[in-house]
């Protein structure tokens, strides 16, 4: 029903799947930020030690990784929607979309680097 | 004038219930069919129908189409043609099931069948007690019907010309109709639609009255076209006044309110219909109830004597459940337009012009009839009329509530079937000459070129006032003579009126001028017919001739554009049952 090239740049190329991914990743991110929020409530003025200790716990790291992945998916669906709403000329839209993906990939690996360098 | 030429097997003018049922019938036949509509199909007046559509399905109790036929003939005050009424009532159930299969979202009974409610004049066993015969979609039956038909026409890929306004029929020297001239409202483009069969489905003309339940588009376009093409209108004096319209605007409050148990009260709180119709009470037929209200108002028992007088319709006793599930649209209308929530307070109502029983005379296949040699019926080749603009004569002098949607459906279908057969058996395009087309163009050219003269607004308003005051619920010789005189003068003035705006693109002023030509034709014909019929029958109620006179007036009256009058016999020969002999009509 809709032009294929436009659709192809969406995360899954399918509205229902994109929608589910967006919701699912939102829930994960929500819980993740709730955990972080809890950490800062218990440690309103953390120092390096407390913070690095918290991020060396395995489940925190795994959860952080999952959250990073969720962020990637969530942001891609969201930003893709925003771009396709407002940017109509195909070359510009394509560039923006490609740039966004690139950024998200960089963030993802940057995040892994931050979490895993002090293993 | 530049004209585009289109050629079709069939052209249907009007996309209301009857037009779209006919087009659906034809679309399945593989023929080339065009539907011209001056509004988008879903804006047609059918959409406003509320209460329901009658058919003897017997879902609530035992029922028989013969009982339905009896009620309809009696309701018509014996002016209805019995062969057509028989056909309609007999085919009603089939039509209902067809609609249901098309997806019409009928309300349902506990057992899953189509919900049926009581309506005025519908009885069991030839007049014994109240029948629940009216199939309903809450109180939005017309909306549901129209949308269902539109949707099925989309499915059938019907070719719609939306916002095309038909101006006049093109008739050849032999008197056959070869198509119509129409204008595309959006662009001003004019076109000749040449067709083997032209079907008029243009609806009523309730806008000849000042206050009417009718949509603004109900301007009798098909009637004007037929009159100008030399065909007559039949029974056009018969105008139904719906008992319950909101005072002022004339917004319709469906009879289903009374069918569900609501009733009328006067300012003393009295349920006055018990006095006028001891058995049927508020469910007597519409002419009876409207007259009763008018008499109450005349006796000073209205709520606002001296001002805009009205009685009230009480339904709060039905309870919120019934009102919200069966009459939700009525509640909305009453709150919006009368500032009264029927859950709590009664709704102010007054008789309001509602329906035109008369129209272009046709046989039961929808073929238009005119008078030929020695005043004998002559079928106009190539022309059909269906729906409110037609007078197959199933409503006679008074239509029963919920029989109009049925009329649309049954005769829309019948005309479609007949036209399909005619075209498939080799009906050719009717031959025409250039002059035939030019003749049909004269009217629109006049409006485009006339630079002087008065605006149409005054003429329009005066016509409505005359109709309202001299041809309303009660009629009397002197005022009708006066009224007709005024109308004739207005008609002359209209010939000289001018259009200030002659632009091409979506010029609604021009459409209104063309519509007024049609309204004026219908108003004059109505006045002439009303003045001529010297008796009281059904909706035609004369104070100077208060009795029905079967000896002299049990006949159809036809009026031509020059206001000459003639007569046709009423058909009293149903096919499969005994004729129904005129009896005294009591409810």
């Amino acid at each position, binding site marked *: 029903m809709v032009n294929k090239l436009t659709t192809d740049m969406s995360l899954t190329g399918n509205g229902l799947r994109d929608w589910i991914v967006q919701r699912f990743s939102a829930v994960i991110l929500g819980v993740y930020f709730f955990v972080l929020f809890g950490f800062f409530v218990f440690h309103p003025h953390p120092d390096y030690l407390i913070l690095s200790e918290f991020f060396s716990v395995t489940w925190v790291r795994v959860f952080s990784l999952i959250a990073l992945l969720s962020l990637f998916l969530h942001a891609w669906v969201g930003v893709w929607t925003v771009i396709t*709403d407002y940017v109509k000329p195909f070359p510009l839209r394509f560039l923006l979309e490609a740039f966004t993906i690139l950024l998200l990939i960089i963030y993802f690996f940057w995040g892994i680097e931050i979490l895993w360098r002090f293993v | 004038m530049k004209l585009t030429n289109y050629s079709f097997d069939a052209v249907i003018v009007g996309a209301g219930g009857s037009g779209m049922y006919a087009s659906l019938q034809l679309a399945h036949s593989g023929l080339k069919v065009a539907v011209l509509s001056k509004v988008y199909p879903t804006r047609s007046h059918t*959409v406003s129908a509320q209460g329901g559509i009658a058919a003897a399905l017997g879902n609530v109790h035992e029922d028989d189409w013969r009982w339905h036929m009896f009620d309809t003939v009696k309701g018509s005050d014996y002016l209805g043609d019995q062969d057509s009424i028989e056909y309609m009532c007999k085919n009603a159930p089939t039509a209902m099931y067809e609609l249901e299969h098309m997806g019409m979202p009928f309300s349902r009974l506990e057992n899953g069948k189509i919900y049926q409610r009581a309506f005025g004049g519908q009885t069991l066993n030839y007049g014994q007690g109240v029948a629940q015969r009216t199939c309903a979609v809450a109180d939005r039956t017309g909306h549901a019907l129209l949308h269902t038909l539109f949707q099925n026409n989309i499915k059938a890929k019907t070719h719609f010309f939306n916002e095309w306004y038909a101006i006049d029929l093109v008739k050849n020297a032999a008197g056959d109709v070869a198509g119509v001239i129409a204008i595309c409202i959006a662009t001003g483009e004019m076109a000749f639609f040449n067709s083997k069969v032209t079907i008029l489905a243009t609806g009523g003309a309730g806008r000849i009255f000042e206050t009417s339940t009718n949509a603004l588009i109900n301007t009798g376009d098909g009637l004007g076209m037929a009159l100008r093409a030399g065909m007559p209108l039949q029974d056009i004096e018969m105008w139904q006044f719906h008992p319950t319209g909101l005072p002022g605007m004339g917004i319709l409050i469906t009879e289903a309110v009374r069918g569900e148990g609501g009733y009328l009260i006067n300012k003393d709180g009295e349920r006055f219909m018990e006095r006028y119709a001891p058995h049927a009470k508020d469910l007597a037929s519409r002419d009876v109830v409207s007259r009763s209200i008018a008499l109450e108002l005349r006796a000073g028992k209205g709520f606002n004597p001296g001002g805009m007088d009205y009685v009230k319709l009480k339904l709060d006793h039905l309870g919120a459940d019934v009102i919200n599930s069966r009459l939700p649209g009525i509640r909305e209308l009453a709150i919006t337009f009368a500032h009264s929530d029927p859950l709590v307070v009664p709704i102010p109502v007054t008789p309001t012009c509602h329906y035109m029983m008369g129209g272009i005379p046709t046989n039961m296949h929808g073929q238009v009839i005119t008078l030929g040699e020695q005043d004998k019926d002559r079928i106009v080749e190539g022309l059909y009329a269906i729906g409110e603009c037609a007078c197959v004569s199933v409503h006679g002098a008074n239509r029963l509530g919920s029989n109009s949607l049925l009329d649309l459906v049954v005769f829309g279908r019948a005309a479609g079937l007949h036209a399909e057969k005619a075209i498939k058996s080799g009906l050719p395009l009717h031959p025409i000459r250039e002059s035939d087309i030019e003749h049909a163009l004269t009217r629109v050219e006049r409006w485009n070129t006339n630079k002087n003269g008065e605006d149409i607004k005054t003429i329009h308003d005066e016509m409505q006032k005359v109709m309202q005051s001299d041809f309303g619920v009660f009629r009397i010789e002197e005022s009708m003579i006066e009224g007709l005189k005024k109308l004739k003068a207005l008609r002359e003035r209209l010939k000289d009126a001018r259009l200030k705006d002659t632009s091409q693109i979506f010029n609604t002023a021009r459409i209104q001028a063309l519509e007024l030509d049609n309204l004026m034709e219908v108003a004059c014909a109505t006045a002439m017919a009303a003045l001529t019929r010297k008796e009281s029958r059904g909706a035609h109620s004369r104070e100077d001739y208060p009795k029905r006179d079967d000896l002299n007036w049990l006949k159809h009256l036809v009026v031509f554009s020059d206001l000459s009058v003639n007569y046709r016999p009423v058909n009293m020969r149903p096919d499969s049952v005994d004729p129904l002999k005129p009896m005294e009509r009591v409810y």
Partner: protein
Amino acid sequence: MRFSIYRYNPETDAKPYMKDYEVDVPHDSDMMVLQALMLIKDQDETLSFRASCREGVCGSDGMNINGLNRLACLTPVSSLKAPITIRPLVNMTVIRDLVVDFTLFFQQYEKVQPYLQNHAEPPATERLQSPEERAALDGLYECILCACCTSFCPSSWWNPEKFIGPAGLLWAARFLADTRDTATEERLANLQDPFSVYRCRTIMNCTVVCPKNLNPAAAIAGIRHKMVEKGS
């Protein structure tokens, strides 16, 4: 009372402009905007607008009145702050004055196959449907196709061709909800791309402006639910 009305006739005007009119509105008048427009047309017959049933069931006279899409015939003048500003429906091509082009709107409607589909041989009488099953259609079938919602929907503004819009989707929901319709899976499959349904962001402008008090946003949510159910 002052009315400021959007005027444009492509035959004579280079571009649209606003024109002011003065209408006598009695103090405690019941007048609706539609009647005011008719009075204005009496002053100036070149003003074009659509109207038919004048009671809110035909859907002809949707327009933007004081910033909101509504039906002129259901909007009391007394409910509005003067000057009353009347513009055509938002984001639809103007044919002339307050008259807009409905072509795209009806194309979107047709996309959802707005008709009952059931290939089984129908019974001799009606198909049965319980009152409860029928009640599932309430709030869906009453749509009058006035386009107030779709023309007021930001998702339709940005993707008028790819996003079906609230009105079309309401009709999709109506046929998905009908127990007599057997094309559910095909209907859902046709709507699964990222645009047709999923551009809806539950902004609810549709629900705010619907003159029939319907809730297209909730109907669209219902379509998504059905897809999730079918997909899992």
